[in-house]
């Protein structure tokens, strides 16, 4: 198909998609009209309610009950102080105030002035933090009581002949942020979350139906039987969904901007919205990639579902995954790290907040847009691949369960295992000791599902899981290589820290967790080295890498990198992800070079042992001289090369004849 025809087909299809979308009144109502009406009403309503509430509280009288065994002079001074500031505060004296009056709201605060063992009276204020009027009473009387304390202290000191210079240590606070910047910054913390939710709700109405719904109705099969490229079909559907998402976002942005200009949101109390000047046209720059990402995500979900209902079910986890990165603005440490810009969606959230607060980092904004668009492109590509598969045709038989099928589902399955692992780890660490948490995590959370997957998807033990003898050479080489690998991963950690620095406190806590606890060396080797070495290699290099390698178009090296990244993600602390993924790549290379998963297990266990020993002995690999790091690299590369050579030699040995001693091992390693 020529470029001209492709372009014509794209435009025709896009036009038809949009025409059909806008002929559906429900689409218009849900994705554009309803949010355009409801969003300002919701914002106005909540702002108005807050203002009205403040007015009501300000107009009501705070009822204070005063009691205590302090001398009358003290009681009357306190009473005068409370009533002195003006405003609707009434004070009544009582011998023994009833706390139930406070609970029922008849009284808003109970002040008790007692003289006990201390030489000065103690003033207690009892209030209910869950009641607005009670909180307002506290806010009203606390500064008055503090002023009374200061003046009394000054008088006592003067009587004792001590000069009192209250202005000797004045502190002045000055906010240098331009007007509206603080409001913009506060509002911007969750602004991108709302934008993403609006975009996804607008896009999902259009895009969810465009593949899954059409497949269910049969119109997709009709379209696929025409002479148009599947890529062109995906591109036009993506563009249509983007158009709806953007239109929805733009209509709402224009709606909000217009209403803000007209003073619709202005309240006497100031409200929670930044000033209208904060809404710069530059805000559209992060919104456009966000809309494209939302469209690609929904299209990806739609293409992977066999029915519209299935697409709806899959949409919830996809939506949560899409909006979660926007919460990065709530974490100051992570939100301000340079690497955050390179994280899809998260970078947009940071940029969006900066623009709202009047700051502009154009390079950061472009990086954030680029990373999000890259992820959108991957999702669109995956959707196009789904469209070209036979499964897209309704009624086609399902493919065979096997490594390739698990490879296609691996990220979903491991994503679920990861989520369970995160949740249970947090709970287990709180409830049980390290040993129990580790055993449960390794055997129940990681190994059990991996064994189930291996059985369910009928993974061949020798060719896919590589459960076959490595011979002697490879495991022996793995021991020094593991030590070298730890030194190199430490260097990599230093490099990664430049982009994503780990806090000193986090590092300190992690170091403590590694070195405290049992002093039983055998137990620690079993718990921290052997068990993780065996279990995690089976889970990541065996099941995950083996199944990903069987996926069409991936191959062993793509699977190696992807499985190592997943392995890194399972080590939750963000500063551990890069070095752990690197160790995963080395262990995976050892498995591929030697042809045996057992080599990876030896490497992994030895690697953990070296890291543990270094932590216990407080040895920092960074303290090694330069030649030490170079030697580590040589040992690792050389060891990996020799592992492969060993395999070649063994393979050659098989050909020497049936009586050859290398025959059995060669057959094992090269099968």
């Amino acid at each position, binding site marked *: 198909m020529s470029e001209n025809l492709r372009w014509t087909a794209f435009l025709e299809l896009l036009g*038809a998609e949009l025409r059909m979308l806008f002929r559906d009144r429900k689409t218009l109502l849900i994705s554009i009209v309803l949010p355009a009406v409801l969003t300002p009403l919701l914002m106005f309503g909540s702002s108005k309610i807050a203002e009205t509430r403040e007015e009501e509280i300000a107009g009501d009288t705070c009822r204070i009950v005063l009691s205590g065994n302090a001398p009358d002079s003290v009681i009357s001074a306190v009473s005068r102080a409370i009533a002195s500031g003006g405003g609707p505060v009434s004070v009544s004296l009582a011998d023994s105030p009833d706390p139930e009056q406070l609970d029922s709201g008849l009284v808003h605060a109970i002040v008790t002035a007692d003289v006990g063992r201390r030489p000065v009276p103690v003033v207690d204020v009892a209030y209910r933090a869950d009641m607005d009027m009670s909180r307002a009473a506290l806010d009203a009387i606390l500064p008055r009581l503090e002023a009374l304390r200061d003046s009394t202290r000054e008088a006592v000191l003067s009587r004792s002949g001590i000069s009192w210079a209250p202005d000797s240590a004045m502190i002045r606070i000055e906010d240098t942020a331009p007007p509206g910047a603080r409001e913009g910054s506060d509002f911007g913390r969750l602004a991108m979350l709302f934008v993403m939710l609006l975009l996804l709700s607008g896009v999902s109405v259009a895009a969810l139906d465009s593949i899954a719904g059409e497949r269910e*109705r*049969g*119109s997709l*099969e009709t379209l696929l*039987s025409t002479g*148009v*490229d599947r890529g062109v079909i995906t591109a036009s559907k993506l563009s249509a969904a983007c158009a709806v998402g953007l239109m929805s976002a733009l209509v709402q942005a224009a709606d909000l901007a217009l209403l803000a200009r007209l003073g619709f949101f202005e309240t006497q109390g100031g409200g929670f919205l930044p000033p209208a000047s904060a809404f710069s046209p530059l805000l559209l720059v992060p919104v456009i990639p966000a809309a494209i990402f939302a469209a690609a995500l929904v299209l990806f979900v739609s293409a992977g579902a066999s029915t519209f209902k299935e697409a709806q079910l899959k949409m919830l986890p996809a939506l949560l995954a899409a909006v979660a990165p926007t919460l990065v603005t709530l974490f100051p440490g992570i939100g301000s790290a340079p690497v955050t810009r390179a994280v899809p969606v998260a970078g947009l959230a940071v940029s969006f907040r900066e623009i709202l607060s009047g700051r502009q980092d154009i390079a950061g904004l472009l990086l954030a847009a680029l990373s999000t668009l890259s992820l959108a492109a991957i999702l669109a590509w995956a959707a196009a691949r789904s469209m070209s598969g036979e499964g897209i045709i309704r009624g086609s*038989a399902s493919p065979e369960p096997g490594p390739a099928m698990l490879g296609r589902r691996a990220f979903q399955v491991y994503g679920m295992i990861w989520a369970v692992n995160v949740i249970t780890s947090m709970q287990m660490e709180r409830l049980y000791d390290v040993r129990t948490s580790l055993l449960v995590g390794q055997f129940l959370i990681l190994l059990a599902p991996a064994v189930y997957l291996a059985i369910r998807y009928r993974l061949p033990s020798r060719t896919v899981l590589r459960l076959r003898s490595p011979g002697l050479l490879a495991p022996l080489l793995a021991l020094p290589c593991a030590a070298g690998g730890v030194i190199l991963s430490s260097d990599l950690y230093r490099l990664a820290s430049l982009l994503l620095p780990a806090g000193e406190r986090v590092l300190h806590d992690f170091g403590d967790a590694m070195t405290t606890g049992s002093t039983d060396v055998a137990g620690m080797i079993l718990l921290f080295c052997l068990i993780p070495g065996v279990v995690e290699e089976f889970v990541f290099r065996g099941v995950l890498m083996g199944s990903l390698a069987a996926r069409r178009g991936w191959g062993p090296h793509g699977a190696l990198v992807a499985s190592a990244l997943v392995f890194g993600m399972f080590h939750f602390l963000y500063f551990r992800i890069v070095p752990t993924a690197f160790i995963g790549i080395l262990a995976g290379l050892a498995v591929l070079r030697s042809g045996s998963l057992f080599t990876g297990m030896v490497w992994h266990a030895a690697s953990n042992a070296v890291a543990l020993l270094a932590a216990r002995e407080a040895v920092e690999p960074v303290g090694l001289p330069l030649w030490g790091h170079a030697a580590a690299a040589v040992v690792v590369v050389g060891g990996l090369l020799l592992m492969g050579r060993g395999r070649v030699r063994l393979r050659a040995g098989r050909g020497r004849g049936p009586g050859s001693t290398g025959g059995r091992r060669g057959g094992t390693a090269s099968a």
Partner: protein
Amino acid sequence: MPDSAVTAVDLCKSFVDDSRGVIRAVDEVSFHVDRGEVLGILGVNGAGKTTTLRMLATLIEPTSGTASVDGHDVREDPKAARRSLGFLSSTTALYPRLTARETLRFFARMNGYPRERLEERVEKVVEMMSIGSYADTRIERLSTGMKQKVSIGRAMVHDPPVLVFDEPAAGLDVLNAHEMLAMIESLRDCGHAVVFSTHVMSEAERICSRIAVIHQGRILAEGTVPGLLERTRADTLEDAFVSLVESARV
């Protein structure tokens, strides 16, 4: 068979089912269809008719064997093969929110029909299909028979040399089915090569130039209706069909 509009040579398609293992849905199927001819593919439900036709339409890929449509190999040049055929099955539907005329225009463009002759062609199809009275009505508001007429128009609007109809009369009442068969006859008479699958004997008997009986993925016999009757010594096509299927079971 250089002049054949459609050729299929040893087409095979296997699926793997969780409980039944490997299923050979189509097993070494070969046939050809010339221009101005209707080849009927006759078989019970699950015989492999739809899978065979979907391979011709390049919606699914053959496990082995090959086929060509108007000289375009379905493996080597699937897009050209698709542009050379109009595909209609009981599972291919139309867009509910487009009108009949918009549907014809859209699918003509999707198959690369020249823009300058588009309106003329659309009006010709509207007239041929006798759908003028509801050409500007949205598909969602049409009856089943009306939709089927638009569907046939949709399949032929780009004037393809080959038409593939997979049980097109499914769900139609007697009158609409009769009218649809008449349309297929007229298409055949205009020189189109038509592949027509059905399990209704009377339909096959009426319009097919030749019939291929398919059962469990294999073609049991192929020939004209009189030829099949003579071969099976049966009086009706239904008897001939039953005889062939029964002998295959033995």
